[in-house]
């Protein structure tokens, strides 16, 4: 395969970043925006081309006999640790990376386009730092693309860090706002903490395995083709054998391989905002809304899922790790859904909804086993990743349009907007239907598959996740009704009425809504499966599961209809019925407060400050005390020099005798 296009896919965003970052302040806002969009547009085309090539060209490098293979387009050594161990920068094409290329470029392009309208006020004046915004967007796109095409775990880690940094920069885009600054800081530090686990996991893995390549960890080379590999259970089995041979059988209650995998998953937990490392994501909504759509809904936050999917064959070796993933995902899903029911800020509702949906994907991966429906969960997870990216980006962009029109995040300021903003209204509704899982919108298909996978694994998981699915439908429609229905507000007096936005903002909405409508019909199983073999979804389709999930979704919507269709006392009653639950949910179960306590009271107050005190007073005090002791000694021997001749002579005599005496005592 020609390397030019893959290189361009990575190089164009990077160039854009450097160009806009360094020379951005010299060019006009408009030029910068157009340049950014053009760049991203080109990448979009190239990525679609590449994905099409991969899936449909029939090139034997990409697949033979219907089996999809992994192909390394290029792999350049970047940093060599030892002759066998090196960080390489490469480009891996396989089903999930090709799919991710499509997702990332699509959303990214939409966001680029959308931001042209969003990042200016009602008079068309561009915001301060517009060029910087596009530069950071390009940086993010570059990093995210680099992440998904990683050929080895360390390349993934590199871009993992880079997306973290660009997320930091974008969340803190409004750097004058203290809340944005602290949110960005929080996001970075929490994910950094998770990355520490990731890094240690990598270290453990590489210590025993000896290199970082995915090709070595999860797949075996295809003999006849250069740089082409097939996912194969033999490779992880070999790895597991190495661990069994060399590592301690049990380390602090788990096998070493489990530890490594769980630590790697910890990295994923951080990025994908799984409990208890989820706290950064709701705060990250301080960033501009397009950023939330791109990074904190569609792409970066699913990196954790992607990571687990990428190492999925290895995870299969350790059931414990997968169970942990399932449990963490399930708890997170329910937690986030409950919290989402009570929030007032539309972006926060969407954020918790994102957490919940990503947890769905995690659970789906956690329950996937080759022996249950040939790992349906894996495919379902990826499918949900895809559809979720589309409809969640759509929802966020709609929210952005509303916020842009109203100038507030709080939906108590909104209500009854459906007359003023018809396009936004309809697209938002499509998004809600999709996420609620109403046939034929895309969310239905992917969510249904996830539930099937859960059922195939364990009925508890199925019930639990179905409940969450119902909650999802409920809170999304609560949001929908509260924004677009309910009573109309009087705040619009004096202002011109809110209205739909310019085409740059509306067009992406329409496109994404269209995708959300039809994406469910993509034969995803044909394209993506854990081992590359085409997956006949219909063979595993279970009508009863589909029916039940549809019914649950409808029930959720109906409940929302009853409670929030128009202003009434029901929500108030409900709140009063379970005040404790409501308060806990409203305060997000006090996770933030807990973290505040740990960081400020325990880490800062209990470790840092005492250590700093210790350093200044004990360690430094010791060093200073050397000087003090010397001075004291100097003071103490002052009387020796009394100025009296006879004392001098006396000491002299004592000196002679002592000299003689000591020698005599030693020798005689």
């Amino acid at each position, binding site marked *: 395969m020609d390397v030019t296009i893959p290189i361009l896919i990575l190089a164009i965003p990077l160039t854009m970043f450097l160009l806009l970052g360094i020379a951005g302040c010299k060019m006009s806002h408009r030029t910068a925006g157009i340049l950014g969009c053009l760049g991203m547009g080109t990448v979009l085309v190239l990525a679609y081309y590449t994905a099409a090539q991969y899936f449909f060209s029939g090139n034997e490098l990409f697949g033979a006999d219907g089996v999809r293979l992994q192909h390394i387009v290029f792999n350049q050594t970047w940093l060599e640790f030892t002759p066998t161990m090196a960080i390489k920068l490469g480009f891996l094409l396989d089903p999930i990376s090709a799919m991710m290329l499509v997702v990332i470029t699509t959303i990214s392009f939409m966001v680029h386009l959308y931001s042209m309208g969003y990042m200016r006020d009602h008079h068309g004046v561009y915001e301060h730092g517009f060029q910087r915004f596009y530069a950071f967007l390009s940086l993010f796109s570059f990093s995210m693309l680099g992440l998904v095409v990683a050929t080895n775990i360390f390349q993934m880690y590199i871009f993992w860090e880079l997306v973290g940094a660009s997320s930091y920069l974008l969340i803190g885009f409004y750097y004058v706002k203290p809340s944005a600054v602290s949110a960005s800081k929080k996001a970075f530090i929490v994910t950094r903490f998770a990355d520490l686990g990731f890094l240690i996991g990598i270290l453990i893995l590489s210590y025993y395995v000896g290199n970082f390549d995915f090709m070595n960890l999860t797949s075996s080379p295809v003999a006849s083709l250069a740089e082409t590999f097939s996912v194969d259970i033999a490779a992880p089995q070999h790895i597991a054998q190495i661990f069994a041979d060399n590592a301690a059988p049990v380390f602090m209650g788990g096998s070493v391989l489990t530890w490594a995998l769980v630590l790697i998953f910890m990295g994923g937990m951080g990025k994908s905002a799984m409990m208890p490392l989820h706290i950064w994501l709701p705060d990250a909504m301080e960033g501009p809304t397009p950023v939330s759509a791109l990074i904190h809904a569609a792409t970066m936050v699913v990196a954790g899922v992607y990571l687990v999917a990428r190492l999925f064959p290895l995870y299969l070796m350790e059931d414990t790790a997968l169970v942990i993933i399932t449990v963490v995902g399930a708890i997170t899903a329910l937690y986030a859904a409950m919290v989402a029911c009570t929030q007032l800020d539309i972006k926060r509702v969407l954020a918790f909804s994102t957490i919940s949906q990503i947890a769905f994907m995690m659970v789906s991966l956690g329950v996937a086993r080759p022996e249950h429906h040939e790992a349906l969960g894996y495919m379902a997870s990826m499918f949900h990743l895809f559809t979720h990216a589309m409809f969640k980006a759509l929802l966020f962009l709609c929210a952005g349009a509303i916020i842009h029109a109203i100038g507030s995040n709080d939906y108590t300021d909104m209500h009854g907007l459906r007359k003023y903003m018809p396009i936004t209204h309809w697209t938002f509704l499509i998004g809600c239907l999709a996420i609620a899982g109403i046939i034929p919108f895309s969310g239905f298909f992917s969510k249904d598959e996830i539930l099937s996978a859960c059922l195939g694994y364990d009925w508890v998981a199925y019930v639990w996740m179905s409940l969450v699915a119902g909650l999802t439908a409920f809170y999304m429609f609560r949001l929908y009704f509260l924004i677009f229905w309910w009573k109309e507000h009087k705040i619009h007096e004096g202002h011109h009425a809110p209205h739909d936005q310019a085409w740059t903002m509306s067009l992406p909405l329409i496109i994404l809504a269209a995708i959300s409508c039809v994406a469910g019909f993509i034969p995803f199983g044909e394209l993506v499966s854990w081992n590359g073999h085409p997956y006949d979804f219909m063979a595993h389709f279970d009508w009863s599961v589909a029916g039940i999930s549809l019914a649950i979704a409808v029930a959720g919507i109906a409940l929302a209809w009853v409670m929030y269709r128009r202003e009434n006392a029901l929500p108030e009653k409900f709140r009063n019925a379970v005040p404790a639950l409501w308060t806990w949910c409203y305060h997000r179960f006090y996770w933030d407060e807990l973290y505040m306590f740990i960081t400020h009271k325990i880490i800062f107050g209990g470790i840092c400050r005492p250590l700093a005190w210790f350093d200044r007073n004990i360690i430094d005090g010791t060093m200073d005390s050397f000087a003090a002791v010397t001075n004291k000694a*100097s003071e103490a*021997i002052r009387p020796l020099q009394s100025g009296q001749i006879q004392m001098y002579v006396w000491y002299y005599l004592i*000196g*002679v005798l002592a000299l*003689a005496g000591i020698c*005599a005592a030693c*020798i005689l």
Partner: protein
Amino acid sequence: MEIVNMDYTQFLAMKQEIGLLIVFIVVFLYDTFLPAKSQKALPGLTAVLMLILTVCGIVFEAVAPETLSKTAFAGMYVSTPVIAALKTILNVGVVIVLIQSVNWANSSFMAMRRGEFYELLLVTLFGMYLMVSARHFLLFVIGLESASLPLAAMVALDKNRYESHEAAVKYILTAVFSSAIFMLGLSFVYGLTGSLYFNDIYAALTGAGVNMMLIVALAAVVSGVGFKLSLVPFHLWTADVYQGAPTSVTSYLSVISKGAAAFAFLVILVQAFGMLYAQLWEWMLYALIILTITVGNLFAIRQKNMKRFLAFSSVSQAGYIMLGVISDGAPVATAAMMFYILVYIFSNLAAFGVIGAIERASGKLSMDDYRGLYRTNPRLSVAMMLAMFSLAGIPPFAGFFSKFFIFTGALSAPGVGTAMYVLVLIALINTIVSLYYYLLVVKAMFIADDQCVIEPFRSSASERLGLWITVAGIIGLGIASWFFSELNVLTATYPLI
């Protein structure tokens, strides 16, 4: 013992002594017989004559070292190129002292005493020559006394200052006391061995056991020489005398007599008591070195008077010099010690040169008066700083090299044990303390931003010449490896044993 007929040609063996005697006679005659108005030239004349003597010494050393190897008076007097080199080193110091003292000697106060100063100085130098060349304790005692008694008179020269008298009394009384103890020790040695020749003592001690009397005798001998070197606890006179004496005398006292005594000490210990090395005097010195360096440093920390400060600094420096003695005459160590003395002469004299110039111009002697000196007298401050750095052993100044070599020398004996490493470590840690107080001076001059009480002034030509010479020495002696290497060639060719 064989009776040797006195042969007066033996005097010719004492080339340097004869040269010095000639200088002395010329100075004496000039002082006595020439009219008062031409007396102003006396300091210059003395300096030039000493310079000639020095140059002659260096030339001899370079051209025909073997001719310097002489013995006279049945072995009482010995001269080797090493000893001659040491004398030349002393001469260099004397020349610098003489140059620096020109101004002082020509002050109106000194008009009547000018000659006395130079004559006494030359006599003490003669005594030191005898000390280092003596191989018999009688000659040594004569040298020692003629090196110390006139010094008392020199200390007392400044008749108008009370401190000068007090210093002189302290010096003379303690000096006589110490020489009494020293001679008592000698009498015991004589009683035990029957001879006062170094060689005979060495031979007599070979195979003989150690008894209490010998220990006491050795302790007494060590204390006698230690007094000259101002080793702790025999150092107590040092600070008072340094402070009280006129600055020129102090500088002479601090470097020249110390250098001579150190070398003589080495000769005595190695040649007469070499047999007792491992049993006795290594450990005596061990204790003395630690005490000297530490106590000297501790006292120096608190001193505010510059002369007193340098007095204690010189006490601790004496401890470092002793590191060259403790390795029992190993050639490298001996060379290192001589080099150390040479460098010490230059560094200390640079410091005293600055102090003397400032004292002459402003009468200020306190370290607090030096605050902000760099603003008013930058050149003097730089010279002082170099002196301090060199004394503290900071590269690339000569002091660094001399210190490094003396430490290396102290460990040069084959199979040297951990004890010696510990000693060197203690000495090294003490260098940090000493660095602290040397830096205090630098800090006062460069960093303190007070208004300096010392007005800008122009130092006299002779002071400047002296400072230029010493500064050149501080910078050049170490980097130009010639000096140390040549000294080492000498000590390796003509070992003490």
